[in-house]
């Protein structure tokens, strides 16, 4: 029987952790780009794009990430595509992130007071110009803190991809736990790994929020 030193365990977990980080970043960045498109559809003047974006967002916010991954994974293989786990994980997490980010950002756009739209309109700015020069710059400032906060949810969401076999931190942890019979130690280390990734983001998001709140009440 093979024996594992603590360093063997940690080294393997670090590899898994690197994949977790990579997957998080890819899903967050690509999801953010998709969310931008969704956002503009969601706040469009016309009904059809608004409705479609709303349906998309509600589906992804109203169903478990795990089931989204399963459906995607098995749906694509029905189409004859042999999808590797990393691809299903990346695409699934990206779609998931885009729905949440679009909704967060929409909230920011809608929290810009009506008077700002009206002031823009009274200066003969078109809807597009009001959006670009008046509303979006203000919404973006408000969006930073919740967006950083959502990054934490993305990192945590990557753990679910272990279930479809993507060898990120949690999956690596499960395999090591099974091999070493030291589940408490291994899962404890896995938890610490996630905490080290997520806590700085949470802390930063909270700080941003406090600062924004402070400037607004001045």
């Amino acid at each position, binding site marked *: 029987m093979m024996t594992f030193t603590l360093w063997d365990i940690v080294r393997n977990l670090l590899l898994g952790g690197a994949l977790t980080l990579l997957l998080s970043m890819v899903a967050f960045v690509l999801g953010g780009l998709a969310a931008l498109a969704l956002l503009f559809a969601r706040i469009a003047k016309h009904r059809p794009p608004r409705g479609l974006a709303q349906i998309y967002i509600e589906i992804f916010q109203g169903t478990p990430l795990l089931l989204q991954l399963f459906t995607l994974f098995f749906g694509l293989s029905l189409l004859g595509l042999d999808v590797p786990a990393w691809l299903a994980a990346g695409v699934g997490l990206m779609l998931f992130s885009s729905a949440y980010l679009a909704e967060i950002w929409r909230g920011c756009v809608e929290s810009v007071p009506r008077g*700002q739209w009206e*002031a823009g*309109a009274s*200066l*003969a*700015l078109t809807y597009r110009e009001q959006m670009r020069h008046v509303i979006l710059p*203000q919404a973006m400032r408000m969006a930073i803190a919740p967006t950083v906060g959502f990054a934490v949810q993305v990192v945590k969401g990557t753990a679910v991809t272990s279930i479809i076999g993507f060898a990120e931190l949690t999956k690596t942890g499960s395999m090591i736990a099974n091999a070493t019979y030291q589940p408490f130690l291994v899962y404890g280390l896995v938890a610490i790994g996630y905490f080290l990734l997520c806590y700085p983001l949470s802390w930063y998001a909270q700080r941003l929020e406090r600062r924004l709140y402070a400037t607004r009440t001045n």
Partner: protein
Amino acid sequence: MPLVRTNRLHKHFGKNHVLKGINLEVEEGEVVAIVGRSGSGKSTLLRALNGLETIDDGTIEVDGTALVAEQGDLRALRQKVGMVFQQFNLFPHLSAGQNVMLAPQIVKDTSKEEAEVIARSTLARVGLEHKFDAFPDQLSGGQQQRVAIARALAMSPKVLLCDEITSALDPELVNEVLMVVRQLASEGMTLIMVTHEMRFAREVGNKLVFMYEGRIHESGDPQTMFANPATPEFANFISSLD
């Protein structure tokens, strides 16, 4: 020909009939004060003149540009009609100068340099040339409202609408804003304002419009109206003020 003319203007909010056929004529250079209780439709009328409220029936004409219920060129109308709001509505992410420069640059394609010249001179008109780089949250309410006036003036509107522009101000800041308005009136700017400042309306206005239940109930020369109210409703209204 009057500068501003509305013809049988109607507006509903659901079942609520807020404007019941408004016929209003404003000559160039005239200063019109619209008064009345809350809910009389005075703010809605003002907002309709700038296309912020759609109208259900009737027409609005400003300097030859017509707006028929839900049709017409809003952008052209709004370039002729400036508006100042009760809550200032300055853009908080832009400095005072940038607030004033924005619309000329975007709507009129003015160059940045030229827009800055315009902004500096309009800010000077409201006495705030030294606040060009200040952000709205660094200004007092009165100063913010004066920047808002400068922002509207920078588009060289034919007529300026003022929607209760001193109502959100602390009492000691009211005067600096009224001074600016008085100055504009003396320079011949056409002004239509909804106001609670009766003394100001009487002193500066050429014309007083009393609105009551969605109609223009009484209008005319302010001095005469205050001295001899023609309707019991208006008499009631002014006696309730003291």
